[in-house]
């Protein structure tokens, strides 16, 4: 194959159609998950890894989500952390979005989106700031929004925090009522 005798002749592959290795399986590194230093369990709702939700998930407090969600997630001015066991098939709308697990859907982070090295995201990202760790898998588009006035955002957050609501999960599928930002096509779950 690599003889240089016929320089203008296209070289046939050594094994024309069979790669010499097994097809790549999607194996993501699963590191011990550490909560951030400023993490306060009392302020953050927690959905464990055995929980499966189908429908519209909305709330007005920060959320750590380690389970499965199919539908939509809307936390408006609050933060969402998708844990390493999180499996999301939904469009996500939150202030800060940190992804350790797998997301299939568009992510709209009004402030920041962070993909950790174990993250697998298939969908578009729209945010003001983005952090992607080396090793994260991403398939989609990234649109960086220009920053809006931060003062207004802060005020809105503090007001909402005084009236926390429980997360609501509908038993059946309902498409998200929240308009989502997408560059190609809106994903429906």
């Amino acid at each position, binding site marked *: 194959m690599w003889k*240089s005798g016929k320089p203008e002749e296209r070289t046939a592959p050594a094994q024309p159609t069979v790669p010499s290795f097994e097809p790549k*399986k999607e194996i993501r590194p699963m590191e011990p998950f550490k909560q951030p230093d400023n993490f306060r369990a009392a302020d953050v709702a927690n959905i464990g890894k055995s929980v499966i939700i189908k429908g519209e998930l909305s709330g007005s407090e920060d959320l750590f989500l380690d389970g499965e969600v199919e539908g939509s997630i809307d936390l408006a001015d609050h933060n969402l952390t998708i844990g390493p066991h999180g499996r999301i098939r939904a469009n996500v709308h939150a202030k800060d979005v940190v992804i350790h697990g797998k997301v299939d859907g568009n992510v709209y982070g009004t402030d920041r989106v962070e993909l950790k090295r174990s993250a697998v995201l298939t969908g578009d990202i729209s945010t003001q700031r983005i952090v992607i760790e080396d090793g994260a898998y991403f398939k989609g588009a990234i649109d960086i929004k220009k920053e809006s006035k931060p003062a207004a955002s802060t005020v809105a957050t503090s007001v909402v925090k005084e009236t926390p609501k429980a997360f609501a999960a509908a038993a059946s599928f309902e498409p998200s009522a929240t308009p989502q930002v997408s560059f190609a096509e809106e994903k429906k779950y």
Partner: protein
Amino acid sequence: MASVTQNLFRLFRGETAAPGDAQQATGKEARAKRHSSGLAEFTKVIAGRENLCILDLGPTSPQNIALLTGMGHRIYNEDALLCSFDPKYQSKNEDGSSSVNIESFLSENLKYQGEQFDAVLAWDIPDYLHESLVKAAVARLATVMKPGGVLLAYFHTRDAGPEAPYYRYHIAGKDSLDLQRGPQFRLQRVFNNRHIENLFREFSNIKFFLARDNVREVLVVR
């Protein structure tokens, strides 16, 4: 002994330094610097323009995303090579060899609106893609690129050898790249200039840059 042999092969291939001997070996995954004339030309084309749609077909590179979004562009990322090895696109032929279902692959990958992209970073993906996918993938890229859009691709020369390692390309500057060893994909073939011209015959212009490390850089204009 193995390292001596490897060094001899590097000399034979014309490499001045092994990627593993990276200057920036500060992290656990060392990277090597590499000059790229093709990238310099690519950078010239997109310089001074904003809101371009750029498609990066390599593995997710935080460095590329940060740089290109920082320049005001919208970036799309799709690791086309990794996707092509998804078992759902693979099938076995009667002779035991494997093949890729092109229609199935293209129905879920490289699926964009027509004439959407101003620039495409294809890196050396065509060298590692399955034989049956190469023409179809390039034809699809031709449809999703705007007229006048540019595509940067790298092709190994024969001297690179079948075990030429697969690298992830991170843009380090207007004419320089950081090379990081990627998964063990195998070089599927070697294109000569005529094959490359045929491959991009739907495009209006093609420019070649021959690098010292047995890589032929190509900048193609839609």
